């Protein structure tokens, strides 16, 4: 009885500690989400109003240009830019990652190990350290403030990671799968698409989601490479809410909410994929 009580108290204490910790981590996020649905007056009220009294979608209407009050910030263009840039750079990074990862996992070629090491080392260089050279080269090439310019940078950031991740997934698939398919009548290409690709699918999907999140959330580089609505993405656009004298917290939070939601959904997807992992029954040992 005594021991049971003790273990129960221990468990309760653990839960409380976890709850408090999560609270500290989550409150800023929660505050952003709450503020997205509140009028500015309530956000700025002192003392702080914790439990919202007045929930509204005005902030969203405002930033998207509906309703009476409008904000002079082209959120829709930023959103489109973000989507185009993140999706395109992800698609390219996944395609390159798939071919590169497959090559590293399956083929022997000269300089393979050094190349792989080089790719991994490039991950160790913080992207921002390269911002000045990139800026100079891009300005010479006329890529400043273009979606293309940003996409290229994001592909470069993501490719080493997607190659590394996808390589790992292909490595887990025994090469006999491919050989068996070839003996069964497949060309190498068919063997890849019908056998190896479906088996590595969850890995490829994870790589894609990670690449998407990186591009979607990136701020440091894009803040230097973009200038106008032609290429500004949501995280950069967020800064438009700060003007010399005022900050439109309500609009900013509404926009932050729009940035967070896709990222959040995708994060859940990644989690599912990563946990699901690969279940192999076709091969023993």
């Amino acid at each position: 009885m005594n021991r049971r009580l003790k273990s129960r108290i221990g468990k309760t204490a653990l839960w409380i500690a976890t709850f408090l910790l999560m609270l500290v981590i989550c409150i800023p996020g929660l505050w952003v989400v709450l503020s997205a649905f509140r009028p500015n007056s309530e956000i700025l009220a002192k003392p702080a109003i914790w439990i919202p009294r007045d929930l509204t979608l005005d902030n969203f209407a405002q930033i998207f240009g509906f309703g009476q009050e409008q904000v002079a910030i082209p959120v829709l263009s930023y959103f489109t830019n973000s989507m185009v840039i993140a999706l395109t750079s992800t698609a390219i990074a996944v395609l390159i990652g798939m071919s590169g990862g497959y090559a590293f996992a399956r083929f022997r070629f000269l300089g393979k190990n050094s190349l792989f090491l080089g790719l991994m080392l490039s991950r160790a260089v913080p992207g921002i350290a390269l911002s000045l050279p990139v800026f100079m080269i891009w300005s010479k090439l006329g890529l400043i403030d273009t979606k293309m310019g940003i996409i290229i940078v994001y592909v470069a950031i993501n490719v080493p990671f997607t190659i590394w991740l996808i390589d790992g997934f292909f490595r887990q698939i025994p090469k006999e799968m491919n050989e068996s398919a070839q003996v069964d009548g497949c060309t190498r290409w068919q063997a890849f698409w019908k056998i190896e690709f479906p088996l590595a699918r969850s890995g490829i999907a994870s790589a894609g989601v990670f690449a998407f999140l990186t591009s979607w959330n990136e701020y440091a580089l894009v803040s230097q490479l973009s200038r106008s609505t032609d290429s500004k993405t949501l995280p950069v656009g967020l800064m438009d809410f700060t003007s010399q004298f005022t900050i439109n917290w309500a609009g900013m939070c509404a926009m932050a909410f729009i940035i967070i939601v896709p990222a959040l959904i995708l994060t859940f997807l990644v989690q599912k994929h990563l946990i699901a992992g690969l279940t192999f029954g076709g091969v023993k040992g």
Partner: protein
Amino acid sequence: MSSINLKKVVKFYGKTEVVHGIDLDIDHNEFVVLVGPSGCGKSTTLRMIAGLEEISDGEISIDDTIVNELPPRKRNISMVFQNYALYPHMSVRENLGFGLKIAKQPEAVVKQRVSEAADILGLSELMDRTPAELSGGQRQRVAMGRAIVRHPQAFLFDEPLSNLDAKLRVQMRTEIKKLHQKVATTVVYVTHDQVEAMTLADRIVVMKDGYIEQVGTPMQVFNHPKNTFVASFIGSPPMNQLPARIEGQTVVFDDGTKLPVPGHLADKVREGQQVIFGIRPDDMTPEGHGIQETGQSTILELKVDLAELLGTETLIYTSLAGQEIQGKMFDPRDVSPGEVLKFRVSLDKAHLFDAATQQSVSVG
């Protein structure tokens, strides 16, 4: 149903030559087993036949068509891999039908052939399971099923039983043999297990270090090993091999023990020749426990070092000329270490190999 011919086939990995120009002719419907220790080139040879490894030099033909340049899919062969290589994302049914679907066979044909194969291998109950839901033996059967549905010209097996436990291995061995009788097709089977080789093969190909040491029926290879390697590799426990010298009509061992030269080999040896005397444990039995006194035999008195009871027989470890050798006691009684037994050695079954060349004196 087809023949497979290898002509001077060579394989290099980088600069290392691993298969040294081997010649081999495999007949229609023949069950040929490539056997040898690991690294002997047997799997590489099989993979070259399958087209999964390029041939560095020489020629491989299937049914008189040179296939050197043909990709695996055009060779009309099927292969069972050591790890089965079943497709984990497909059901048993889809695994079986995969090759036929790739070949764009009509749905009805696929269905009929798949159920035919399932019947032969007793898989009908398991058709909707995935490989993960099968036991080792069942996976093995699916792998074989996948091989037979396509009615290929030849089956290639790459150590198909080595992932199974001992009991299941014996059972599957029998099934493979039965399968070969049911679907008469050329089979090339790779194993490192000489028992599998002996039980399954029409002909055994013993390989070592990328060379073929001997080709022959299980009986030929067992009874007339061409050299000391084949003699020690085929047969369990392995043949006893003792260095000796020919003096007159006797074989003299290092410790001075003398045996008469086996009659059937008398004219194959010369005076003073350094030889290796080979005798299988089965041909060296304590008096009254095995060999009858027919043919040429002789008696050796040896001290028992260790006795291993195996049930129908007891394996007796003893030594001669400072070397451990084994004899067998059939219809055994209790034997204790230290006991001296009179072994009857059947000289009719003895072998002599030249010490320098390691080749049997009875070969050319």
